[in-house]
């Protein structure tokens, strides 16, 4: 499996604060990687280091096999980048911006550009400064997709967009996956925005990476265990580390098991809380797993 982004101990300090702290992750080619975390967790700082907009204090990042601090025109011609607070040539019309961008990219695909233009319903003759937020986002995405980048980096692309525009943006992004050698890295604070899109998930919290894993592997190792307990049953003083948010509520016990092993996990629950009966293990969606993790991190901090 080729990785398109690879970081090792990537760190960025602002004064005494580490905005990104010892971050190591791998983004495999052909994945839609959702980079999730609350606002202020370090997502944008990470992305800026990946794209050589910010220098790391320590550690390193490789993008398309090149160290991030050595990225040059050759690499940038294969990377699309759209951020929440995109700087745009506001005085240009949409058409002028397209003509302005086109010569910079050898792989610019005029037919694809025309198709996107139609799909996004963008007016060529309007100046960017007169466009709505959603229109601007679509224009930015258009000029980042039209050269069919190998890597598309989207920083909070859906923030403040109405549902219709959000849908158009997703549709446009998926156009890219028709070709070979595509990868999408998309940051978001909201699992709901990316749940059906992502097949890899990274979770960052207070500058630290908590998790970076394929959705399939997460869904294989997480289960919600439920059982019936006797009156007055209590949680063990030191529950197994793999249990997240264990709770006993009257006659039932609920545990999110993060290292599920068929049969064994049920047995260890029955042993940890003696008298537990009728234990069932149910699969969890990406959203439920994310919420369980989010609750756990908050409880710990």
């Amino acid at each position, binding site marked *: 499996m080729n990785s398109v982004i690879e970081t090792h101990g990537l760190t960025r300090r602002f004064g005494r604060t580490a905005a990104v702290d010892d971050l190591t992750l791998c983004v495999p080619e052909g994945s839609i990687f959702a980079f999730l975390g609350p606002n202020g967790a370090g997502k944008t700082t990470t992305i800026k280091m990946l794209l050589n907009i910010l220098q790391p204090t320590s550690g390193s990042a490789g993008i398309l096999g090149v160290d991030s601090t050595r990225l040059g025109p050759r690499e940038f011609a294969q990377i699309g980048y759209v951020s929440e607070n995109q700087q745009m040539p506001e005085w240009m019309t949409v058409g002028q911006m397209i003509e302005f961008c086109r010569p910079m990219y050898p792989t610019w695909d005029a037919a694809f550009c025309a198709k996107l233009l139609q799909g996004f319903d963008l007016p060529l003759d309007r100046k960017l400064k007169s466009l709505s937020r959603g229109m601007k986002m679509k224009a930015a995405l258009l000029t980042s997709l039209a050269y069919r980048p190998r890597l598309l980096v989207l920083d909070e692309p859906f923030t403040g967009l109405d549902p219709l525009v959000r849908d158009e943006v997703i*549709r446009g992004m998926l*156009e890219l*996956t028709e070709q070979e050698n595509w990868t999408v890295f998309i940051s978001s604070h909201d699992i709901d925005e990316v*749940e*059906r*899109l992502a097949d890899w998930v990274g979770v960052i919290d207070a500058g630290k990476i908590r998790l970076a894993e394929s959705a399939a592997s997460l869904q294989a190792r997480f289960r919600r265990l439920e059982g019936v307990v006797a009156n007055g049953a209590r949680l063990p003083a030191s529950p197994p580390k793999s249990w997240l948010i264990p709770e006993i509520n009257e006659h039932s016990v609920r545990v999110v098991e993060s290292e599920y092993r068929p049969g064994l996990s049920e047995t260890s629950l029955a042993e940890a809380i003696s008298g537990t009966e009728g234990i069932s293990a149910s699969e969890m*969606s990406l959203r439920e797993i994310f919420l369980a993790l989010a609750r756990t991190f908050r409880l710990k901090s």
Partner: protein
Amino acid sequence: MLPFRVQFKPGAHTYEQVVYAAKKAIITGALKPGDNFPSVRVLSQELRINPNTAQKVVAALAEEGLLTVTPGVGTAISEVRPPTREQLGTLLGDEVERVVVEAKRLHVDCDDLLQAIRQHWNRLS
């Protein structure tokens, strides 16, 4: 446009929801044997889902014998085949048990449950 509709529920498995919607379209006759089934690319773009998930959906439906994949040509709805013992087992064992457990929990009468099943049966045929 897709020949079937998927009403996504937040939090539920994307893959299962799409597989279920496709099966429903096939048994209700919205998709008939020989009809083309959307490609992975079209499924992904129309449903706004990950292309790898769309790929899994097509593979699962083909595995169950509902789709016939002809490389280079496309994917079509298969001719109706008698269900396997395994498929019958899943339906008559696990799935029916699930409904009965829910019905008992809600104190639904057996006759009422049978009537509801019959209604759905008629609606879908």
